[in-house]
């Protein structure tokens, strides 16, 4: 009963009292679900409550005569969910048909699903079945979630951060190099101060030496060597400090962006296959290379300049005020005007840069689209259209840049004009002050020198406004990757698989790509060492099933158990060490053949590599290559035939000595002659391992212990080759079709 009270507590307050009133004595609340749409898909809330006796429901609009309806639970009562696009449906059925239905938006899908699971879970519990509680899985992204929570962390995206904060997040990377950042700052401060000394020294040089000499014919020239010496020393000091500052800060910023690249790449490698399916390679490469590079430039050039500018402006203003406050105030009159202008133009620049960035992105994606697909473009003679498409996006780049230039071209000279105006004010005001005897000529000339520096600094500061926008866009693109969670999460309490025996059990395995369910509850047990051939038409779900077993994805519902444990409870890497995979298109990395064979076990000895190559029937063709096992393959390496590449990938799988072997169309891209060779190689590989093989050519599966025929996401037939032929079902049909093809060709030949 305490459970019920706790459950009632989780109900939204507005339903709580009424639900309590509806429950009969001794009735236990199992679960509830709040649908957020009505049957006409208007936003109306409706509560579905599951108890140990009934299913109850109550609608939000109270106009209906009987707000509460209920159906008793029988053995035939069934709850199921279905999704059509973004609106899902939860249905209550029994033998007589549909009793009730609730509609909900996509965000509620997990909760609806939980209700369904609760019913089946409760039933199992009552029957005394001790099935392990299956982990709930987010239906939209496939990530495992804790059963009680009902919400997926991966999907519940955080609020979109404002652009600047991405830059501040860089500070986390800077913190690791705090000492050097501090050193860089101190150096900047001293270098800027050193730069301000020369104008200060011109003041006494003029007032104490040159002007007295000109007026009276006498001057203390013994001081000149001190002043000139001081000027030279200041220049030298500035040079030295500038050099140290530039080097230290450039080092720090290069270091930070290298750290960022390393972190991003490491994170990228850990993301699940699903992430890469939805991303363009070019875009990911550009994020890791260009965006980090741009950030580095920003940190090392713009940010340093900006810091120096601020310091310079503050120090100059301080010096000016200390020499002559009145003249200083006059000189600074245009300053607020410039600040106001910057603030106004910044908004325009921002939207302009964003537009320019988008246009640029569009242009790159045209390139990324057509260059890899150039053969298709040429084959269909669509060069002219592609050129047009590129021209159109190129023009957009031009126009958006043009729009920016319009603002910029007016803005920059205006600032210069205001600077000159500032200088004029100083001249006019200063001359008047000299005339009235308030200041000396030396002071005025020092002022002019300072003010000129002051305003050039302001000009360069304004450029900073655009650099910030650029850099924060880059930072955002990088953090976008860093913020992604793997949809194949590591378990909180891992079970270490060690070396598996290789017994695979599928229990009601369902899988969805987005809203489309491609596997509808598969059940299958594969004994250790057994070879299973997966047969079925394209799109039946064979590859999906293999992806699930490899844990490239996680099931949407149900579970995959290996040696009796849910695969989601294994640490991903440890689990995959037990799996060998041979794909249709073997991928060879750039490197030697020996390195490629040892990819899964880099520490393997040369003897082991040769042994694996022998078993994969690759040894002899490797010896025929000019460099033997040291021959380079992969991009720009020795070109190998499809069959040779495949045998190298078989050797690769053999070397890790996996317990579970996956063959995904391993022989379908080669001719029959080569297939025979590969087949012998595969037999060495399969021997004694749990093997799941997909093949279109049924002849490749003759060694399979059992054939599993999959159609439309369901297992339709299981059995040995001859059994299935006798049955005369789908397999027999497929087999007949292939035989016809073979004999048909023979008939043509005669």
């Amino acid at each position, binding site marked *: 009963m305490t459970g019920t009270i706790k459950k009632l507590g989780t109900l939204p307050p507005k339903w709580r009292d009424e639900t309590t009133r509806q429950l009969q004595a001794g009735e236990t609340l199992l679960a509830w679900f709040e649908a957020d749409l009505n049957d006409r898909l208007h936003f109306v809330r409706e509560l579905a409550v599951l108890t140990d006796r009934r299913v109850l429901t109550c609608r939000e609009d109270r106009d209906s005569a009987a707000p509460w309806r209920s159906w008793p639970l029988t053995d035939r009562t069934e709850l199921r969910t279905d999704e059509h696009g973004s609106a899902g449906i939860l249905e209550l059925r029994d033998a007589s048909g549909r009793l009730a239905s609730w509609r909900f938006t996509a965000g509620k899908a997990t909760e609806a699903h939980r209700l369904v699971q609760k019913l089946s879970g409760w039933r199992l519990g009552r029957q005394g079945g001790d099935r392990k509680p299956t982990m709930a899985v987010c239906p939209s992204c496939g990530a495992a979630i804790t059963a009680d929570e009902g919400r997926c962390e991966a999907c519940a995206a955080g609020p979109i951060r404002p652009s600047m904060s991405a830059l501040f997040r860089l500070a986390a990377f800077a913190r690791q190099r705090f000492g050097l950042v501090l050193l860089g700052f101190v150096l900047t401060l001293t270098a800027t101060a050193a730069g301000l000394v020369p104008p200060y020294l011109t003041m006494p040089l003029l007032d104490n030496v040159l002007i007295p000499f000109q007026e009276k014919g006498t001057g203390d020239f013994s001081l000149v060597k001190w002043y000139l010496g001081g000027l030279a020393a200041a220049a030298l000091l500035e040079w030295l400090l500038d050099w140290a500052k530039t080097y230290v800060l450039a080092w720090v910023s290069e270091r930070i962006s290298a750290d960022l690249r390393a972190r991003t790449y490491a994170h990228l490698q850990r993301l699940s296959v699903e992430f890469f399916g939805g991303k363009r390679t070019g875009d990911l490469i550009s994020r890791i290379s260009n965006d980090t590079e741009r950030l580095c430039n920003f940190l090392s050039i713009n940010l340093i300049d900006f810091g120096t500018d601020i310091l310079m402006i503050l120090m100059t203003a301080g010096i000016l005020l200390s020499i002559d406050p009145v003249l200083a105030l006059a000189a600074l009159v245009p300053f607020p005007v410039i600040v106001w202008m910057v603030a106004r133009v910044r908004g325009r620049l921002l939207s302009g840069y964003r537009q320019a960035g988008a246009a640029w992105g569009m242009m790159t994606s045209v390139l990324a689209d057509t260059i890899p697909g150039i053969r298709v473009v040429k084959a269909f003679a669509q060069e002219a259209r592609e050129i047009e498409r590129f021209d159109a996006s190129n023009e957009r780049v031009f126009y958006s840049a043009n729009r920016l230039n319009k603002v910029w071209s007016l803005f920059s000279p205006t600032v210069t004009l205001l600077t000159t105006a500032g200088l004029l004010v100083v001249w006019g005001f200063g001359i008047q002050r000299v005339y009235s005897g308030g200041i000396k000529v030396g002071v005025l000339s020092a002022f002019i020198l300072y003010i000129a520096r002051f305003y050039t600094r302001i000009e360069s500061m304004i450029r900073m406004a655009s650099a910030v926008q650029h850099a924060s866009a880059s930072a955002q693109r990088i953090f976008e990757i860093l913020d992604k969670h793997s949809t194949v999460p590591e378990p909180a309490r891992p079970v270490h698989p060690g070396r598996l025996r290789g017994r695979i059990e599928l229990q009601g395995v369902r899988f969805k790509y987005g809203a489309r369910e491609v596997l509808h509850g598969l059940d299958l047990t594969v004994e250790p060492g057994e070879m299973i051939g997966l047969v079925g038409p394209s799109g039946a779900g064979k590859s999906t099933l293999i992806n699930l077993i490899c844990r490239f994805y996680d099931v949407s519902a149900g579970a995959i158990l290996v040696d009796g444990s849910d695969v989601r409870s294994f640490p991903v890497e440890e689990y995959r060490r037990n799996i060998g995979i041979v794909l249709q298109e073997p991928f060879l990395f750039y490197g030697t053949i*020996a390195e490629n064979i040892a990819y899964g076990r880099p520490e393997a000895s*040369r003897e082991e590599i040769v042994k694996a190559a*022998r078993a994969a029937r690759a*040894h*002899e063709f490797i*010896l025929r290559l000019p460099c*033997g096992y*040291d021959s*380079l393959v992969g991009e720009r390496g020795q070109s190998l035939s499809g069959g040779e590449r495949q045998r190298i990938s078989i050797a690769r799988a053999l070397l890790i000595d996996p317990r579970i072997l996956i063959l995904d169309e391993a022989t379908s891209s080669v001719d029959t002659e080569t297939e025979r060779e590969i087949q012998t190689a595969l037999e060495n590989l399969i021997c004694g391992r749990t093997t799941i093989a997909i093949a279109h050519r049924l002849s490749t599966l003759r060694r399979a212990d059992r054939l599993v025929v999959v159609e439309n996401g369901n297992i339709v037939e299981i059995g040995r080759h001859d059994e299935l032929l006798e049955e005369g079902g789908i397999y027999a049909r497929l087999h007949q079709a292939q035989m016809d093809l073979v004999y048909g060709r023979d008939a043509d030949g005669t």
Partner: protein
Amino acid sequence: MEPDRAKNGRALPQPFTLSHDVWGQLVMTDAEGLEHVGVELVRAFPLSDPRHGFAVCDSDGRELIWLDGLDALPAPLVRQIEDELAKREFVPIIHCILRISSAVEPSEWEVETDRGRTSFVLDSEDDVHELEERRALVTDAHGIRYLIPDVRQLDAHSRQLLERFL
């Protein structure tokens, strides 16, 4: 079947003899006295481990005998094998790079090798491969390989020329 025979080859006490027939072809007589005409000797790891892993292949490239190393073999046979390998393997060792024509591809190289001075054309800078332990392999436009055993051992001028390719 081949792997089995190779395994036997490893276990043989008096493994095989080598000779040349009247046509100059290499003939290998195995332990059973069977003659194989036109055999070839190859190293499995010519670059990364030239002292281990040898195979005697027949004219079709099928492996007849596998040798893990030469240590266990009688000295005259080892000398014979080494002579044959030296005849077969043509990988000049670059001692010094004299000149690289231009920064644009293809570039012409003039080098001093252990087999004398020569020049060759390099198609692209991707054809200079850095192997482990600072070794570098240069493959020219015709596929001839030149080895630089240790980049650090080159003189300063050669190193400078090579630098942009690594």
